């Protein structure tokens, strides 16, 4: 119980199954197929800069929409009775129990031409292409990761002492001031962890853009493609993605304490 040695098995585990594979990504990025040093993989990765930008753009918009949708939702939940809160939070997590690919396919069916939404819309005279555009990709991302935004926000908001809000009201704050001076500042750790939990996976996911964006490719899709054809280029792309995510996390962590993540 008092022994530090207990950490040893997992330390060895991490060295073998976390660190060595990451080192392999780095070494593979700078090697050609026969193992000689080269920078050509990196320059090949640079050719995909448009795809990187597109992925970051999609991730940024999706994260923003998730935040705007989740914030009022989490606030409403945090005002409910404890019993109701646990039931609502459970109901929010339940859809995540159906496989990610199936939920994605569900949206493909819902949004396809002649699908249920299209039928209703064309019945009232609206004819729009619901699928195969960036909007559909963003919808897929928001759908996939909205619960990851609601949860940490709800965690911090439910911890806000009700007396603080009442005190602010007693001291003459209107509801806007209560929000801007009490609720919002106290919810910042939740916002930060929610942003990280939505942005990172939505920037790196694959398949969503292929299925909802009409064969559009995000960075995850490109990495998946190279996985069989050219693992060295794939490593270089994975390395770039990792560096971007790392920079992103360092920046967001400036705004809040990472300990607050309530997964």
């Amino acid at each position, binding site marked *: 119980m008092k022994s530090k040695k207990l950490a040893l098995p997992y330390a060895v585990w991490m060295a073998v199954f976390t660190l060595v594979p990451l080192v392999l990504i780095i070494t593979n990025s700078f090697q050609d197929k026969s193992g000689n040093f080269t920078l050509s993989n990196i320059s090949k990765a640079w050719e995909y800069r448009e795809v990187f930008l597109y992925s970051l753009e999609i991730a940024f918009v999706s994260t923003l929409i998730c935040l705007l949708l989740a914030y009022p939702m989490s606030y409403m939940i945090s005002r409910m009775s404890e019993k109701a809160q646990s039931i609502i939070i459970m109901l929010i997590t339940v859809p995540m129990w159906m496989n990610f*690919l199936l939920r994605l396919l569900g949206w493909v069916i819902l949004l396809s031409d002649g699908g249920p939404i299209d039928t209703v819309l064309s019945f009232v005279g609206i004819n729009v292409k619901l699928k195969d555009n960036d909007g559909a990709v963003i919808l897929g991302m928001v759908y996939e990761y909205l619960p990851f935004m609601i949860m940490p926000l709800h965690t911090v908001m439910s911890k806000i002492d009700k007396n603080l809000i009442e005190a602010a009201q007693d001291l003459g704050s209107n509801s806007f001031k209560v929000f801007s001076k009490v609720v919002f500042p106290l919810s910042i750790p939740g916002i930060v962890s929610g942003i990280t939990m939505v942005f990172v996976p939505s920037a790196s996911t694959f398949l969503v853009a292929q299925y909802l964006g009409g064969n559009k490719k995000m960075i995850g899709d490109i990495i998946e493609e190279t996985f069989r054809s050219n693992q060295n280029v794939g490593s270089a792309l994975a390395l770039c993605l990792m560096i971007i995510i790392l920079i992103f996390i360092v920046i967001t962590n400036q705004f809040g304490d990472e300990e607050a993540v309530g997964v």
Partner: protein
Amino acid sequence: MKKLHLPSKLYMLLIFMFLYAPITVFVVLSFNDANSATNLDGFTFRWYGEVFRDRMLMQSLRNSLLIASLSALFSTILGTVASIGMYNFRGAPRRIFQTVSNIPIINPEIVTGFSLMLFFTFLGTIFNFEMGFITVLLAHIGFCTPYVILSVSPKLRQMDKHIYEAALDLGCNQWQAFFKVVLFELLPGIISGFLISFTYSLDDFVISYFTCGPQFQTMPIVIYNSLRRPVYPKISALSTMLFVVIITVLLVTNIRDLRASKSDKK
């Protein structure tokens, strides 16, 4: 407690409709007699029967359940032991340990999957093996253990340090003190770590996809392979069943928790 106003209720309702829309599609399709996504053609239970006759689907379900149980078991043990060891660290070593442990959580899944694929193929060329059951299992233990540590460590910090010493003073040896006292204090964290691991493992597609090799298939991989075919009502039926089972388990445990907390207050 203020009651919610009508606009708030409507807003919540809309969010829930959004969250449940694609799931409804599958529940409907699983009862659809036509093998099609767009034509509804009468109500049937036949896909539910056919699921159990589909050897490949059943095998993949068994594989998924086996991988999920084993990886949850191993990562719970590995993570709990590591949490206790880490609890005795202070300062920089602890921070480094925690950071490295969090890498699989923070890193994009596709990077983790890709790096493990490189690692396993590298080992495979040396020791002459192909990726399959074992590599998927190792990969799953790798991404589950950090979640166990995240759920056990807070319980360790909350625990009264003196109860372990009290147990020693009262004549327990180290092992007895751990199994009779400390373990019970940590149990809620250990159980939730186990459940998180089990469910993440069961649902994982990306990391399994990169580490499963050419022969071994879990449920999500079978689903992925069937995506390219038009529709697969059997998979809808199987997923609906799994979904119902999971909701039932969640509801029952949740209701029990609520009951327990109610009787605690009395």
